[in-house]
């Protein structure tokens, strides 16, 4: 699998993701530029975390119209793999590739800390072979409060499209473990075709021995 990580103006987790996939997981990774129209033959496209366009207007709203997004959308619609992490997840909802929207955190404050998430979907590449337990993965966002209308929520649950939910360290899904007010403790979803994923927590920040937390590497390893 050839991976591509897109840099938008304001992305700041692109290098972290490239490092995790290349150094920690030994994968071939290409650095893509938002102004280009060429995915350089990548099979799997990452939209990284950060503050594209300063997160102005709405997180990911402006980046969604970068030239490369036409190719990313076409790639996804052809069944190609696309994953948005944090800001990347927001872009995918703005682009309509994923359902719902990421609103301001319930506390209206930016939150950066370790949280626990538990895999849900049995049919999505990133979760289907994961052990059903709590994984400690950090979050860092101001607009991570997942929202969708009740009918869309039902569709997500019926189609096994919820990939992760916030939980406590024992894997129990509780209100206390929900850091930002997300509906149904949702931390990440995928599309109907199970080829486009969105995740608010940052697995690339928990993938290196030097940082004393490797749970994120287990998640990213599912994509290899």
């Amino acid at each position, binding site marked *: 699998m050839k991976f591509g990580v897109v840099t938008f*103006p304001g992305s700041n987790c692109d290098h972290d993701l490239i490092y995790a996939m290349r150094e920690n997981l030994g994968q071939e990774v290409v650095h893509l530029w938002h102004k280009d129209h060429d995915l350089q033959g990548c099979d799997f496209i990452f939209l990284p975390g950060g*503050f594209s366009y*300063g*997160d102005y207007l709405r997180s990911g709203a402006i980046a969604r119209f970068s030239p490369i997004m036409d190719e990313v959308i076409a790639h996804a619609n052809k069944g190609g793999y696309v994953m948005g992490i944090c800001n990347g997840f927001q872009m995918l909802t703005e682009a309509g590739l994923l359902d719902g929207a990421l609103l301001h955190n319930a506390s209206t404050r930016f939150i950066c800390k*370790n949280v626990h998430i538990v895999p849900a979907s049995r049919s999505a590449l990133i979760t289907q072979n994961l052990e059903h337990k709590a994984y400690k993965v950090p979050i860092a966002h101001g607009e991570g409060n997942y929202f969708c209308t009740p009918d869309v929520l039902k569709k997500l649950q019926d189609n096994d499209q919820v990939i992760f939910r916030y939980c406590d360290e024992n894997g129990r899904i509780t209100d206390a473990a929900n850091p930002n007010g997300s509906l149904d403790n949702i931390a990440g979803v995928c599309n109907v075709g199970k080829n486009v994923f969105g995740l608010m927590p940052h697995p690339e920040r928990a993938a290196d021995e030097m*940082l004393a937390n490797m749970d994120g590497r287990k998640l990213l390893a599912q994509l290899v």
Partner: protein
Amino acid sequence: MSNQVSTPVTAEIAAKLGISADEFDKIKEVLGRTPNFTEISIYSVMWSEHCSYKNSILQLKTLPKKGERVLAEAGEENAGLMDIGDGLAVAFKIESHNHPSAIEPYQGAATGVGGIHRDIFSMGARPIAALNSLRFGDLSLPKTQHLLKGVVRGIGNYGNAFGVPTVGGEVFFDPCYNINPLVNAMSVGIVEVGKTASAIAEGAGNPVFIIGSSTGTDGIHGATFASEDIGEDSESKLPSVQVGDPFEEKLLLEATLECIETGALVGVQDMGAAGITCSTSEMAAKGNAGMDVDLDKIPTRQENMEAWEILLSESQERMLFVVKKGREQEIIDICKKWDVHCEQIATVTDGGMLRYFHKGELIAEIPAESLVLGGGAPVYVREQKEPAYLKEIQKFKLSKVPEATGEEHLEVIDFLLALPSIASKRWVTEQYDSMVGTSNMSTNDPSDAAVVRIIGREQAVVVTADCNPRYVHADPEQGCALAVAEAARNIVCSGGTPIGVTNCLNFGNPYKPEVYWQFAGAIRGMKKACEKFGTPVTGGNVSFYNQSESGGSVFPTPTIGMVGLIEDAFNKKMSMNFRKKGHVIYQMGRMVEDLGCSDYLYHYRGIKHSPAPYLNLEDEHKLQKALLKLIDQELIYSAHDVSDGGAAITLLESAFPNNMGFVIETP
């Protein structure tokens, strides 16, 4: 000279701009004529305390600045630069944004973060860590809560969007800061030796470009504003607050580093206080060159701005590049790639004369050297006088302090733990992204100082910012030495070896002899401690005129930013948390019966005056070297420095992270 600016300037006008009668005479002597309004405005910002350091430079010069790792000594460049081996260098600096934050906390703090990062990347270094040292008044006051919320949100939103992790710092509360909070921001960056940029303009004919945001009227007289007392009327100084754009700064960072990489740049400087005036004059003076500057070429955000408004504007996210003639297009293309505005506004000339043109007219002509620190800027010696409160301190008797009875001990500990300066700062730190860059090794393994690995290397830099202002108030010399000692101790407890210091000196009005006595004393303490620990001072910032409500001044606050190094970070990093039941706890260092300036005395017993705590620099240095040996031989599991709140709080802080307990018997 055009008529609009040639109206003669009187001593009264000069005085209103902060220029004394003697300074006005000196200007007339330098120019050989009376300056016009634009020229006096330029002198007023360049000779303000903030830019010229006129009341502090003689003291600062006594600090140790040599060292075999030092690549850029204090005052030479935008930030200090030290060699960390294998072709890499670390750039670091700390600066204050106290006065703007007192008026508009969000933007004041945000622009402080933006400014300090620009000092680092204008050296060609990529910032990898940020810290901030914050001081507020009584937390029960609504005004303090308003300032705290605004400052923390401003630092968070700017730093998080810019993409540099905020890894450490301090938050301290005392009523002396009720109307004048202190916001000190520190940045640490990495650059390959030989790939740095210098803040210099040379080579007649070389084009000079302004890069980044367009220029508006925000922040006019930001420099002189910082050289005035904050009072109730400060609110009226509205246009003096600058607004920051972290998105523009991120583009500016990438464009600047890429431009420096090409080798097509002669010099780079960021635009901080006094904007275009300061950068053009300092760069020209450093290269013994002149500059012809055309203000009409400068992109402005508002129509028909006055010449002096353009010159003094402190709009954020702007840089000045001196480009090698013929290689302009490389720079223009890189800026275009990153959607960063880039315009040629000047040309370097021989002869050291700055000439500013506006609407085709020569509106100011000033020798660059006459404006700058180390050149013609005035240098003063101020009167010193011991403050009266020292007598109160000498009256203190330890024996007169009521003994805490057995039952009272738990109550005292609960009381201390709940003090805002000691209690957990999670409410603040969780608003900062401390993990971007995947290099903060202290996230899941907490340590006294932040350990930040260098990607692709086994090394890590260890960074901290420390100062207990109560100690410095009680005894400036001892108190400042204690601040340096504590910073060094925090680094050593994390497994690092201290290598260099930057300082942010927050004091009251230098024209008050008591304040200047505090300032000179603190410098003496810093000098002897830095010499003892072998940590040269590579630069920093002085912020005077920090007032308290009563018209006095805030506690003298010389914040010490210190950088250390671990060669083998994975194996030799040390953390502060207890790990396993059964481990034995040792206390290192001599036990001295001493409650001086403790939180227990000050808050619990309400004894506001007591001597600074005990310090023997020789013992302290030996202790730190011994601790580093223990860590090197991997004989200990954790190390934590005893500071605010004493041993009881230190033990609890070590127990909390892994939900551990402890048993100790006192003699």
